[in-house]
């Protein structure tokens, strides 16, 4: 779910103003379509610091609806959203895998059972 209070194990997400596309914040404060390249917090304080960075980053004017969402660490160490809604936001429509701004990202897993039907 979005708009969470700072807690451990979160990532920052937003929508691009020009396209509305879903983006995630990297450790450098830049924005990426690739959720697995997002910066994942270990502590609530880290989440808070990430949110502050997102609000003040040079790219702030390119995004809107900045918020924290719950994420988990995949076995390979990369972050992944917890809630199905956020998984769908990260991947694009599950009924049209060819669409979505993330469709070109080769290394994004599309096999997680929680979005298959």
């Amino acid at each position, binding site marked *: 779910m979005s708009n969470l209070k700072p807690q451990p194990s979160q990532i920052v997400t937003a929508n691009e103003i020009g396209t509305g596309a879903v983006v995630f914040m990297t450790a450098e404060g830049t924005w990426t379509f690739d959720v697995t390249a997002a910066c994942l917090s270990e502590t609530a304080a880290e989440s808070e610091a990430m949110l502050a960075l997102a609000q003040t980053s040079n790219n702030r004017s390119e995004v809107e609806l900045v918020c924290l969402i719950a994420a988990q660490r995949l076995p390979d160490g990369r972050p992944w959203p917890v809630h199905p809604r956020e998984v769908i936001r990260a991947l694009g429509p599950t009924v049209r895998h060819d669409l979505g*701004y993330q469709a070109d990202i080769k290394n994004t897993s599309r096999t997680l059972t929680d979005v298959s*039907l």
Partner: protein
Amino acid sequence: MYLYDEYDKSVVRQRIADFRDATERRLSGVLSEEEFKLVRQMNGVYLQLHAYMLRVAIPYGSLNSRQLHRLAHIARVYDKGYGHFTTRQNIQFNWPQLQQMPDILEELAGVDMHAIQTSGNVIRNITADHFAGATADEVDDPRPIAELIRQWSTLHPEFSFLPRKFKIAVTASAKDRTAVKFHDIGLVLHEDQTSGRGFKVYVGGGLGRTPFVGHKIREFVPEAQLLAYIEAILRTYNELGRRDNAFKARIKILVHEMGADAFGELVEQEFSRIQPMVDDLPTKELERIRQRFITPDFADLSDTDLGLERAKAEDPEFKRWVSRNCSTHKIPGYAIVGVSLKDHGAIPGDITAEAMDQLAELGKLYSHDEIRATHEQNLVLPHVKKRDLYVVWRGLQAAGLATTNLGQASDIISCPGLDYCVLANARSIPIAQAIAQRFADRKREDLVGALKIRISGCINACGHHHAGHIGILGVDRKGEEMYQLSLGGSGAEDAAISQSTGRGFDADGIVDAVDTVVGIYLDHRHEGENFLEAYRRIGPQPFKEALYGTA
């Protein structure tokens, strides 16, 4: 088709210029999303889950071939090659970029279309019977009245900040194809031997989290006084409707809480006050609008076409299509052709740019240049000569639009759900696809017969689940998509709200549950009895026992 005059065109152009300015200020950071939101909503621009979405109004569902070609062009150039027909005679584009939005609106204006008031707390697109002007069972074509209401309600200063959105539907037929009783105002044109022509008026119907069947507050409003009466309803609602709680702000809550009789009395008081001031004007305006509607120049034909009969005899597939997809036209020798956008496993309401172009050509050549959008997310060629049906069928086949499932189990209304919608709690489309696949066996689908399955991905009920013979509501239960089943609803003249069967199912379970329910119907039905009739006779108990056991 209604033809815009210079005034109509200038209103739309001015609106686009204003919106272009606002969009530029938004993109340069002068306007915040909060400041921009109201402006974009008034112009049909939503921010959805993955991108901006543009909702374009198709007033009373009528399109000409130029307009449909233009929609195809927009899908191709500004979107990802397809459009999505909604449950209220709109089309949505799911991927346009914000900076291109004013250009898209210019493209639309070039063919007399717009996205004004397809979002926000205003009077939304005026919908009407998609068989209007073609069906034999109507008193008259209801679209000039719908156009009159559209013009009156467009940018109406008094009704630009209503407590909540406001939806009006018009029909002129006793057979309701518009879900008229599930609208904020539903209008039914009818004729009375002594009083002449007028409207039955229903108010306070709606779906969403608190569904109500609309209440009839007037049996007869003379045609000339209709606008004054609608104005009286809106004034009463605008003053008394709740603004403190968005979930209780629709007119249906006001009507329910004060009672339809009391509400109707207030409307009558306001009506008697304002009616003398606006008398006569609508009559002249309606006449002007009628004159700007192009009425098809129908040919004088025999109702029986020998070529058609021969083709039916020789080609059983064609015969099936004629019997499933064609309806009776008011003019001898013509038929109304239904076009399903629900091929088994397809996304309900989605259509490619190529298919739009192909259908537009068929409409131009064979349907007096008219195409209609239905609230059931399908399309219609309203005026096809019977002798052209075979050619039209071949053309539809080539476009992948000749599916013969209209009104059957796989002709499912589905909202976009969590695959696209920012409000959704669960996905709808994959459920619709999975259920439709269960009925891919044509023999089974035919055996089951008329069945309306409706799916919504949240309680806002864009998928009309309350009005389904079988309704499905997606919910989020602790991070899992779950689906509640309800039975016995109807969006037709016998409007009814479906009733929940009990605890919900997961995604696989709900598809099985629909199968189970259909099985019980087949076991219990009498000769010639459809699902809804059987349900009304035997009640929910046999279905519940099959779903949950007798314990």
